[in-house]
């Protein structure tokens, strides 16, 4: 029993450590989200509620900007849907892992499913060979607490932080995401996925400011899938599993 407990403790610590660089990287965005919400006329409670319940950085920032510019609710809902549409990809990818979990755990993992939690959780699944609900929940909660703490700082003291963007904390995102993907680059389909989605995202971002991530990802996935089918058409029984190391 104590053996199991200590293994779970180690897993939980690893989950916190894995998501920590990504959580630190979004602190400036959390502060900005809180500060901008107040500037746009939200009450402190509404600004915090947004991070507590919407819990989606890019969608929050863009909706605050849209609202301040006088956009209609329907256009804000539309942009929220488009920006967070990439979560549908995470949801369908995770489906096989969570199908047998209790409703409570599925609701919790669904609620906590962010880019960051998906990234570290997929990496853990591929590293250890099995999905862990504990790992997903602990990493997701860690991110949730830090995101909401950062929002709170922005609500209380937003005007104190002017140059957060220039600190370069976003490099932690670059480093972590490269670290999670480049180890498998020797596999040609993965190389194609990375090259295609990267190039397409860079080119599309100025035009499709809200949907470039999901479009680029689908192009990369399609390229990788087509090449994998070409290399190995027989192995389509679902055993073929590749993911971040």
């Amino acid at each position, binding site marked *: 029993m104590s053996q199991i407990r200590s293994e779970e403790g180690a897993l939980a610590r690893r989950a916190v*450590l894995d998501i920590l660089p990504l959580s630190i990287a979004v602190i400036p965005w959390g502060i900005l989200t809180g500060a901008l919400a107040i500037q746009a*006329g*939200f009450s402190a409670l509404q600004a915090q*509620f*947004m991070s507590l319940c*919407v819990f989606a950085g890019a969608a929050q920032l863009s909706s605050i900007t849209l609202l301040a510019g006088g956009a209609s609710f329907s256009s*804000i*809902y539309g942009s*929220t*849907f488009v920006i*967070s549409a990439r*979560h549908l990809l*995470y*949801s*369908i*990818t*995770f*489906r096989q892992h969570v*199908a047998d979990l209790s409703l409570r755990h*599925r*609701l919790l993992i*669904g*609620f906590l*499913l962010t*880019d960051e939690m*998906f990234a570290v959780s997929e*990496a853990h699944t591929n590293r250890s060979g099995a999905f862990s609900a504990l790992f997903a929940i602990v990493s997701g909660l860690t991110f949730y607490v830090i995101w909401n703490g950062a929002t709170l700082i922005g609500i209380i003291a937003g005007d104190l932080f002017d140059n957060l963007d220039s600190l*370069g904390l*976003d*490099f*932690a*995102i670059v*480093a972590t995401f*490269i*670290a999670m*993907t480049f180890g498998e*680059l020797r596999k040609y389909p*993965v190389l194609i*996925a*990375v090259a295609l*989605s*990267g*190039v397409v995202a*860079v*080119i599309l*971002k*100025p*035009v499709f400011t809200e949907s*470039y*991530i999901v479009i*680029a*990802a689908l192009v*990369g*996935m399609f390229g*990788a*899938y087509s090449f994998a*089918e070409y290399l190995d058409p027989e192995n389509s029984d*679902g055993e073929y599993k590749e993911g*971040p*190391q």
Partner: protein
Amino acid sequence: MIWLLLLGMALITFFNRYLFFSDLVSYSPSPKLRRFLSYSSYSVLTAIWAPIIFHFDGRSEIAIAGIDYLLAAALAAALSFAKVSSIVVVLLSVSLFFSIRFYLV
């Protein structure tokens, strides 16, 4: 009115996250779709980080966020390709990034 906006947004983001976890969706991905989805993390993560470093102006020019970004990302790429563990890759490349940023640039 803002409360209504926030509730609507919360429902939309939760819908996108939970949709395929729900019992109401009984769809189960075929082996081909699962193969397709096995590349989702590589593709999404790259689509998120690449535009942080490379900025396209929409016409012909591609700018780089900075030499600090480029060199530290190159280090991260080389180390990861060489199968160095993720935590070490992040620590070393972030250290290089801030060293360049605060001492050289």
